[in-house]
């Protein structure tokens, strides 16, 4: 169980390896093992270096330049970042991104948790339900958005036909800002709930039945067991999912690009669609890179939070 792995801070001195630890590093073959380990890790690190770190550093350099799409840019210092401050379209995109994150993260996590809790109990054809919920994960974002177009088209879409058939008024999904924003939230929640359910299911299956037994013996009802046993012990899982969902939400692009194109009237424009428009339509790659660096900063902050949380919260459990 997890408690056997809990560190005992009072018995060791951090920073100074114990005698036994020093001995272990010197055992025969250790050097070769380490080399083999580095050998296995090297391809991953190489890919990370070439496809993540080099472009990242490159994007930072580009963000310091004034560019017109072709040829060398001219060094502009922090001009692009200063432009961000006074750019209403950037702030609108940032506001939309934050709102999108605040809606999608709790909604998709809540639905994921409910689905995982249901599917962790004895249900008929349980594997089928699990597969159905996980299925959207296998669908690309573009395909999801194209399905969304068929569903939400306000003239000939399936949803408005259903609403009309049951006597309700059709909704202006594409021409009014609030319903349009709702379409990208709904499509993303549908897409992401299965992923959240999968992670929560793994978390739920790590909770021993003895805890529920003990709580039942103490007189806890179903809700109290969920509230006081399940929820606290899913803490690390929830935190992991919060961070991941926030990063995913900040990076949302394909669903918005295909489903609403950022409209109507910019109501669904988010940071990455704005960066794309700036970089590939206007061809102002320096400014687009600056938007990208802002996005990276957000991701970095949450990744740091995840790193800290995963080290501390594991100990609690």
């Amino acid at each position, binding site marked *: 169980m997890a408690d056997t792995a809990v560190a005992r801070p009072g018995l060791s001195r951090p920073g100074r390896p114990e005698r036994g630890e020093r001995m272990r590093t010197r055992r025969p073959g250790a050097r070769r093992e380490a080399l083999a380990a580095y050998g296995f890790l090297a391809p991953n690190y190489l890919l990370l270096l*070439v*496809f993540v770190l*080099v*472009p990242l550093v*490159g994007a930072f*350099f*580009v963000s310091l*330049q004034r*560019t*017109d*799409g*072709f*040829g*060398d*840019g001219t060094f502009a210092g922090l001009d692009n970042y200063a432009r961000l401050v006074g750019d209403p*379209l950037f702030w609108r995109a940032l506001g939309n991104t934050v709102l999108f994150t605040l809606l999608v993260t709790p909604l998709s996590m809540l639905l994921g948790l409910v689905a995982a809790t249901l599917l962790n109990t004895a249900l008929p054809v349980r594997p089928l339900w699990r597969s159905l919920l996980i299925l959207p994960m296998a669908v690309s974002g573009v395909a999801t958005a194209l399905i969304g*177009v068929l569903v939400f*088209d*306000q*003239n*000939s879409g399936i949803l408005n036909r259903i609403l009309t058939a049951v006597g309700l008024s059709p909704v*202006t*999904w*594409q*021409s*009014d*800002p609030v319903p349009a924003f709702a379409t990208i939230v709904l499509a993303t929640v549908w897409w992401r709930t299965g992923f959240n359910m999968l992670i929560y299911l793994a978390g739920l299956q790590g909770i021993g039945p003895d805890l529920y037994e003990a709580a039942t013996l103490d007189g806890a009802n179903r809700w109290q067991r969920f509230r006081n046993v399940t929820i606290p012990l899913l803490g690390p899982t929830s935190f992991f999912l919060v961070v991941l969902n926030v990063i995913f939400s900040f990076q949302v692009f394909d669903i918005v690009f*295909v*489903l*609403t*194109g*950022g*409209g*109507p*009237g*910019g109501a669904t424009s988010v940071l990455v669609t704005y960066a794309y*428009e*700036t970089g*590939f*339509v*206007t*061809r*102002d*790659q320096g400014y687009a890179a600056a938007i990208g660096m802002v996005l990276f900063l957000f991701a970095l902050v949450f990744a740091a939070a995840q790193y800290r949380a995963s080290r501390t919260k594991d100990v609690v459990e």
Partner: protein
Amino acid sequence: MPVTRRSFLAGSGALALPFLLASCGFVQTAPAEKRQGTLTFTTWGTDAELAGFRAAIAAFEAANEGSTVELNAVPYEQMFTNIDAQLQAGNPPDIFRVPYYTFGAYAGRGQLLDLKPLLSADRQAQFTPQAWAAVQNGDGTFGLPHHTDTSAILVNLDLFRQAGIDASEIPTSPENAWTWDQLDALGERLRAGLPADRWPWAYNWQGNGVTRWLSLLFQSDGAFLESDQKTPAIDSDAAREAVAFSSSFFTKNYVPANNTIASSSYAAESWFSQSVAMVWSGAFQIPDADTTADFEWTATYAPRNVRAGSDFGGNALVATANTQQPELAAAFLEFVTDAAPMRDFCRAASLLPTRGDLLNDQLEFDVRPELAPVFAGQASLVQPQDVAQVASPSMSAILPVLKEQLDLAFTGAQDAATTVTNLQSGIGAATGG
């Protein structure tokens, strides 16, 4: 050594390209000695267009022994991100196809070959003045106009009958095209005669098709740039009238509410599904309409206001500035814009030629040939000064401004006067003018 964007991109491109592009057909597989006399040509296209290009290439190779042209067909969606990356990495194709509204972004930034010294003397005279204006930049000629297309109106005759409008009311010549007032009156009758879930029309201004809104501006005799292609000129009564007129399509319920600029639903889809009675459309839709539309339909001319005006759609063929074979590239461009290859290409693909000797009453389409004169007549209404504005090097920066501001106007978020004021300042910021 300071790391420049160019050296960074070249370095990372050298590392990544073999892996990324091998499956896309971008890797030059021919040995170096065989590159002599070989041109690379990147384009997107419908099946009919690609067949036309292949036929022209075969004829060129037969007429020029020792020369080959490698055709690289890519999806439109990735065409220009690829071309931009290749230009930046220094390995672009020798020739590529480019819409007229994107042409200026390449020509104005030194990425294209100036063909002027390489073309035969009579070449300019073969093209219409509008087409020739679309490939000029500064003092140079940076491409040849391969074909054009322009928006006329496709009409669903079944819905017209349902609304009690007789087909005889549909204009049959450019001179008697509907005026804006007549179009408005027609919209009112269609609105009254059609059920609530059918609309009089849809306009094809979605996405980069926002340039088609400019036709309304031109019909009011307005402009968005001065002749220097830089100074904004949209702050005018003509522009306010055009914005107010197009916004009225929404307030008067003439178009579906999702017929906005950013909409993910294209105007043509509404017409095919019979949600609208008319749609502004290029001739390229004719083959699809012929096979898909299960209703009776025809085509008529776009409306006029102070004057007629229309968009100069279509594409040019251009050679890249650093091609190793400028003479061969120019020869190929001349060959595919000769009368016979252009006529065959346009006839099969339902597009309009850019040569004056082809854009006439003799123009034929393989499908619905009787409609060819409508689109040819519409194309003849395009003014060279209108085309020159769209060929501005700053057009790629102007497009987002048009999309943003017109979408705000159409969704009722701002009035015509504010929209035009914002367009003027936005276009000024985009051009630096």
